[in-house]
């Protein structure tokens, strides 16, 4: 009772990276609290799924396995998740801040009247004293997240309601195998006990999911473009530089919103967090929304027409000039010197 539960989502039948990252964080929190770490997997054809979860620290693995449960649909997954939470009363529940987690977690929090903090960048156990009532709370989950376009960092707590719920984006937490694997005990959830016909009224007519080809998280070099790159066409030159340097193209939120690049390449608080060896920021002004996702890069080069762009404060090298012209020269001189 009162353990930590991680909702583990599936991608092509295997557990998504973000869920394994949450298990790694959950294991750490469970060790601090002296409680168990539990995983919840809802889907179809799940035999054997528990192995990876145990290796990432899960002591108990709750499994709901039925053909109606894959692909993800909001209502049946909500019913099972709420049912389990009411039965087990976890103190903490973690979800990926993905299209699934951001659809499901608010629904669950609304049903259970428990607070939910979206897109946490850090989760820490700590105490709290309510200054008005004088009530002291121990071992609360500090849910730390950027707010207000990333210009402030807020620490959110849920003193009186359980579970304390949070979502975390992929790539924000580190994924590691547990020092000692979890017990990995499988507990099967009875589908018919939780799901009724009204949960199945939304039908999936068509579904097209591409394999993930883009791996900006693991790339040693990232050439990222901002709104200042100007067009989707101009992004092709960034892709050329990235290819020459053996890296990937990234983008700021402004560039993604403008349609210059895909969301899968977005770096920052509402995208992926990256830590490459070299980060080349092209036409990126450097709002905190973006820099929070890349400021741990080993080396940062900024290219901007504005010599006072905020990004230059983070940069090891700040190049003042036109992005297209500088990127072309980088391609040219890299090719010349690398032979």
């Amino acid at each position: 009772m009162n353990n930590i539960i991680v909702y583990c989502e599936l991608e092509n039948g295997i557990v998504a990276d973000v869920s394994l990252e949450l298990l790694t964080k959950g294991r750490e929190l469970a060790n601090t609290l002296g409680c168990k770490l539990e995983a919840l997997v809802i889907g179809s054809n799940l035999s054997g799924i528990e192995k990876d979860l145990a290796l990432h620290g899960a002591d108990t693995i709750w499994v709901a396995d039925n053909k109606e449960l894959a692909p993800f649909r909001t209502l049946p997954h909500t019913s099972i998740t709420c049912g389990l939470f009411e039965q087990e009363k976890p103190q903490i529940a973690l979800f990926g801040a993905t299209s699934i987690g951001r659809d499901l977690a608010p629904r669950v929090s609304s049903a259970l009247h428990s607070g939910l903090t979206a897109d946490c960048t850090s989760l820490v156990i700590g105490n709290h004293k309510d200054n008005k009532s004088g009530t002291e709370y121990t071992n609360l989950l500090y849910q730390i997240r950027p707010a207000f376009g990333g210009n402030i960092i807020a620490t959110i707590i849920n003193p009186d309601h359980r579970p304390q719920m949070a979502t975390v984006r992929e790539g924000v937490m580190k994924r590691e195998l547990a020092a000692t694997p979890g017990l990995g005990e499988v507990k099967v959830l009875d589908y018919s006990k939780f799901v009724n016909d009204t949960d199945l009224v939304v039908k999936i007519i068509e579904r097209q999911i591409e394999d993930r080809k883009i791996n900006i998280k693991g790339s040693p070099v990232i050439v990222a473009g901002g709104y200042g790159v100007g067009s989707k066409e101009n992004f092709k030159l960034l892709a050329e530089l990235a290819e020459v340097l053996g890296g990937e193209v990234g983008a700021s939120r402004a560039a993604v919103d403008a349609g210059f690049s895909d969301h899968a390449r977005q770096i920052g608080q509402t995208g992926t967090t990256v830590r490459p060896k070299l980060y080349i920021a092209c036409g990126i002004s450097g709002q905190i929304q973006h820099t929070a996702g890349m400021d741990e890069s080993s080396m940062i080069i900024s290219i901007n027409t504005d010599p006072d762009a905020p990004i230059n404060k983070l940069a090891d090298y700040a190049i003042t000039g036109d992005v297209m012209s500088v990127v072309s020269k980088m391609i040219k001189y890299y090719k010349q010197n690398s032979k």
Partner: protein
Amino acid sequence: MMEKSLKIVVLAKQVPDTRNVGKDAMKADGTVNRAALPAIFNPEDLNALELALVLKDMAAGSEVTVLTMGPPRAADILRDSMYRGADSGILLTDRKFAGSDTLATSYALSRALAKINPDVIVAGRQAIDGDTAQVGPQVAEKLNIPQVTYAEEIINLTDSSITIKRRLEHGFEVVESPFPLVVTVNASAPNCRSQHAKRVMKYKHAKTPSELQALNSDYITTASGNKDYLKIQEWSVADVDANDVELGLVGSPTKVKTIENVVFQAKDSKKLSSSDADINELMVELISSHTLG
């Protein structure tokens, strides 16, 4: 064939424009000067309004009402909505709403929606001041109806169902849902149609009761007093029969423990020009330091 007309409600929010925190919006100590940020129509709520107007175009006789919760000045986005094609606006405003987190907000909105009883509720995926994307799904749960999140396009509409294309991280999904439902709309959906000059003329005198009170009585009788379509409704906690303990700070399970302003720490950066010599030297340096290659 669609023969039924739909009662459509758009949930919209007026937000500070956090996307353009420029140099003037930063104070000398590196923190945000909130007063310098303009209040705007939350961008994805405009995508939501467009989707609602498309639905109205598809189902003759449908009505689009925009509902916003906020301070009195939020009536601005209701007028903006009418200029773009919405039929009416409702401002949910009460001091008791202040300090509400997403859950308390969704409770308040769900009380107002229960009074309207719409077929379709359309909202932006998320608001840029918080980026939580929680209110849409939380409202759907409170009303005990299905939700379709990240909507991009209406594929089909019948008397009993709506088919919607939704954007996912690595692809898309087409789903069919019965009415009533909550739809949240993605930024990748079509942009909202512009304000229409004739509609601006027609609705520019649309006012809430509090706005009218602040004006002189001549204005009330001449400009907007006796025309129903110029009355923006204003609802309080009592009007939507909401329970005080579920609102505001008291009704919010999440509490803000601390707020920290993010301040840029300047690095010692080397300044380069875009000259051939500078870029060549940089690439040589990156290669010899094994940062590249």
